């Protein structure tokens, strides 16, 4: 596969998401695949944002480990990311404003300072002075040249983006794009001479779409008529898509006062007779749990999406994690039938949503979709043909008319399948109450006056029987990769993409590996998973959490324990080489070392500077010191003044605890 990764770093409000979007869409229109990841913070302006756009001539499943071109939109970004650029890569920055120290990059990396005033002289003469945000378009022009992407597609994307604006704005942006392109061409060669573009991909439409957009699209394609939500990252973009397309697609969108209201409205709409959905993050879902059980006992079809972010509590609102498995699994008191599905990719998020609506109606139960921030918010190109545009909408066993000669209608009739034909309010002769108390076939409560243990036993059995058939409707998990692998990697959710890529890398270093991805959590394919795991040699779980929740869940369902666990819990998604390193470590029985790496020490050093008003400095040297009164080895970080290079301060960070033991100004 040919590939290039472009990183754009800057502050929130610098407009770098737009640049990334233009780059990605231009590539997609050319028939190239893109996967983008935005490492952002819960802040509207300022802060540090780091967007990676990985472009390949085949499908790319994650943001990868590489960095070929860096666009640094401020001094801080230039310093923090230049060293990450691979050999043969390029660092792009505004040389009118920022100073780049070539010591901060690898030797073979080309430093492309853009003298903005000089480059844009003619454009400014024609269109007037530029706004700071426009430097992005110039840098983008340079990237289009360096990556051999040409300038035509980017122009077309800009024209579409600014279509609603004045023609002058369009012309100005195109002129800036050309300026950047021409300047880069005058300075250096492209980092890749030519793309071998797949003819099929060139022909197909490649929308650049996020997991949340795929979920929203899947919902409306399935006939979702009611969507309720309370704003919460990383689920809010479903609300935004639904609200901005409400009239076009015919979905009533209700922003509620809290998540209690959100789920209860969605359930009410389900009882009222429409397909309904809601979505939230872990914190909002915590408020919803009581009602999930109500949907279970009332046998109401409803779809609820839980997009995981870093927890617990408010946790890391804009960071990814997979630590809500047990929360979703255990949601609500009591036992009731439910579907829990964890999609793996953007197109799978679409399919899982369509399936969730179908199963919710067929089995009259709550269908819970667990996503995560990475899956929900990252955009990637997906061939349009991957989306089933012809969704068959089957509302399940519905009673549309009833007359007295058919006897009394029983809403919760005890049936073999456990599914009781459902009548919607408004239908004649089928009156009933949807009760949150347990009840008999005729929906009369068995909780107060008419307590009957025998009826309770039978209605429990009726409800739970639905799970047997539901399981049969779901595709069992399959092993991906060679059957005779030495290592089997267990994963779920968005981690699937990176694990899939790591198989190839592991193979390259002589480790034959395969993967088992769990998509359906409830009901669970116990037999199939046991068959796979019983044959596996070394079994390692790969999860973005601390306590290996999927590994523990699989053990609880199958009795089979993993031989080791690979975890990341710093808020960032896993990259392929991370898995390779960890698998190697596990295979050679190396203890899991949690000591601060140099990169982590640098991250903490920058954090210290930024939170103590010391941004005139930067860390210049990291060295190990043995125990020196701090009960642990330390990293000695030496700081220098950014302008003069004079030594300014020293920081000692505990190599084990990460504690800031000392900060001394010189």
């Amino acid at each position: 596969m040919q590939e290039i990764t472009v990183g754009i770093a800057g502050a929130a409000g610098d407009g770098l998401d737009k640049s990334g979007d233009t780059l990605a869409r231009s590539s997609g229109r050319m028939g190239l695949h893109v996967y983008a990841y935005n490492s952002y913070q819960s802040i509207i302006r300022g802060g540090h944002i780091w967007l990676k756009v990985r472009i390949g001539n085949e499908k790319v499943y994650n943001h990868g480990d590489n960095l070929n071109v860096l666009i640094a939109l401020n001094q801080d970004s230039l310093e923090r990311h230049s060293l990450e650029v691979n050999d043969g890569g390029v660092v792009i920055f505004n040389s009118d404003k920022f100073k780049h120290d070539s010591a901060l990059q690898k030797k073979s990396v080309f430093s492309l300072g853009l003298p903005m005033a000089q480059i844009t002289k003619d454009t400014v003469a024609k269109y007037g002075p530029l706004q700071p945000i426009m430097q992005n378009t110039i840098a983008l022009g340079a990237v289009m040249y360096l990556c051999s992407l040409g300038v035509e597609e980017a122009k077309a994307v800009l024209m579409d983006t600014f279509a609603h604006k004045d023609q002058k704005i369009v012309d100005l942006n195109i002129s800036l794009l050309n300026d950047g392109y021409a300047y880069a061409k005058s300075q250096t060669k492209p980092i890749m001479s030519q793309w071998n573009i797949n003819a099929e991909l060139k022909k197909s439409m490649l929308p650049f779409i996020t997991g949340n957009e795929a979920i929203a699209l899947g919902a409306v394609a399935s006939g979702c008529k009611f969507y309720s939500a309370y704003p919460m990252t990383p689920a809010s973009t479903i609300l935004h898509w639904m609200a901005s397309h409400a009239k076009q697609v015919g979905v009533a969108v209700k922003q509620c006062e809290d998540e209690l209201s959100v789920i209860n409205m969605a359930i009410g709409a389900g009882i009222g007779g429409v397909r309904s959905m809601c979505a939230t993050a872990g914190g909002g879902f915590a408020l919803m749990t009581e009602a999930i059980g109500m949907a279970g006992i009332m046998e109401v079809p409803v779809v609820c999406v839980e997009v995981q972010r870093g927890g617990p509590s408010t946790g890391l609102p804009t960071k990814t994690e997979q630590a809500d498995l047990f929360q979703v699994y255990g949601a609500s008191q009591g036992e009731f039938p439910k579907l829990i599905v964890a999609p793996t990719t953007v197109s799978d998020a679409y399919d899982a949503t369509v399936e969730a609506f179908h199963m919710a109606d067929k089995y009259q139960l709550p269908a819970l979709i667990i996503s995560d921030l990475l899956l929900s918010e990252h955009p990637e190109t997906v061939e349009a043909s991957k989306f089933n545009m012809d969704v068959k909408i089957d509302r399940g066993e519905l009673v549309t008319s009833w007359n007295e000669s058919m006897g009394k209608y029983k809403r919760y009739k005890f049936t073999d399948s456990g599914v009781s034909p459902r009548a919607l309010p408004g239908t004649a002769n089928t009156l009933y109450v949807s009760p949150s108390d347990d009840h008999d076939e005729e929906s009369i409560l068995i909780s107060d006056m008419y307590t009957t243990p025998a009826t309770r036993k039978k209605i429990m059995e009726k409800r739970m029987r639905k799970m047997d058939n539901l399981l049969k409707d779901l595709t069992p998990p399959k092993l991906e990769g060679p059957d005779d692998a030495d290592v089997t990697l267990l994963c779920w959710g968005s981690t699937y993409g990176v694990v899939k890529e790591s198989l190839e890398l592991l193979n390259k270093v002589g480790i034959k590996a395969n993967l088992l991805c769990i998509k359906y959590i409830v009901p669970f394919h116990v037999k199939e998973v046991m068959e796979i795991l019983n044959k596996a040699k070394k079994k390692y779980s790969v999860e973005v959490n601390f306590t290996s929740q999927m590994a523990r869940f699989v053990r609880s369902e199958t009795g089979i324990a993993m031989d080791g666990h690979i975890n990341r819990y710093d808020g960032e998604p896993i990259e392929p080489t991370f898995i390779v390193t960890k698998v190697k470590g596990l295979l050679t029985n190396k203890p899991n070392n949690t000591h601060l790496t140099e990169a982590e020490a640098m991250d903490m050093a920058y954090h210290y500077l930024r939170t103590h008003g010391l941004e005139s400095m930067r860390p210049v040297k990291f060295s190990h010191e043995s125990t020196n009164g701090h009960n642990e080895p330390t990293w000695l970080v030496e700081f220098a003044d950014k302008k003069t290079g004079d030594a300014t301060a020293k920081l000692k960070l505990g190599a084990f605890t990460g504690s800031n033991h000392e900060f001394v100004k010189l």
Partner: protein
Amino acid sequence: MSTLIELPVETYKGPVDPDWCPGCGDFGVLKALQMASGKLGIAPKDMLIVSGIGCSSNLPGFIHSYGIHSLHGRSIPVATGAHLANTDLHVVVTGGDGDGYGIGLGHLLHAMRRNLNMTYLVMDNQIYGLTTGQASPTTGLGQKTKSTPIGNFENPLNPLALAITSGATFVARGFSGEQKQLSDLIAKAIAHKGFSLVDIFSPCVTYNKVNTYPWFKERVYKLEETDFTTNDFHASLTKAFEWGDKIPLGVLYEVDHPIYEDSDPVLSQGPLVKQKLGLDKKLFTELLQELV
């Protein structure tokens, strides 16, 4: 309502008899609701009674109509969802003061400011009855209950003032002991276009020994027998604070404001449950094209 055909009260007789304590105020409310429904000629299949949890929230099980007996405090959002799914249904929410003014108060405020076309009947007995007698949000100052053995020292909430200031467009108070007036109030509330709240004194004969039938009978009077007008915000608000020796019953406030359903571009196309489902290929392609 132009071709109104009244239905007999027996039309709404539920499958089982209420299990409320003998003498409970809720019997009178159930009867008044059945009378009001008959008066309006609402077919049982077109009526959806939604409740939360509490003695009074058992009501949907005792009336012949569709019903939802939901979670404690969540009747309003459940009812909102069902109503928005099918605006052809007459949605009446029933419950108690603990359910509506305590655990569910947040939802009530927002339903009122949205001016949803629903009716909310609160059987206000100023006590938690089902949990055997603790103080509720409307329990009077100084009243001793199981949870306030030295006397309640939290100010009671004023549901009528709250409703008037929150955007409800029909606010009334009834009394279970004045059944004829109550059924008229409920009928007016259901017929009103917009959010209607009827706070109903519904004495708990078991756990509230202060606010009893005789206690109310001595104090209540009917607003319709005075020259009170119902469309003056400030006058209504002042009236909502009248309490003590004289307590008003009747319609306190009634105005005509736009309802939520008429402003929503999708809901205004008719009941969701009757609308077309899914996307055609052309629209689907357009939606993907936006992302290219």
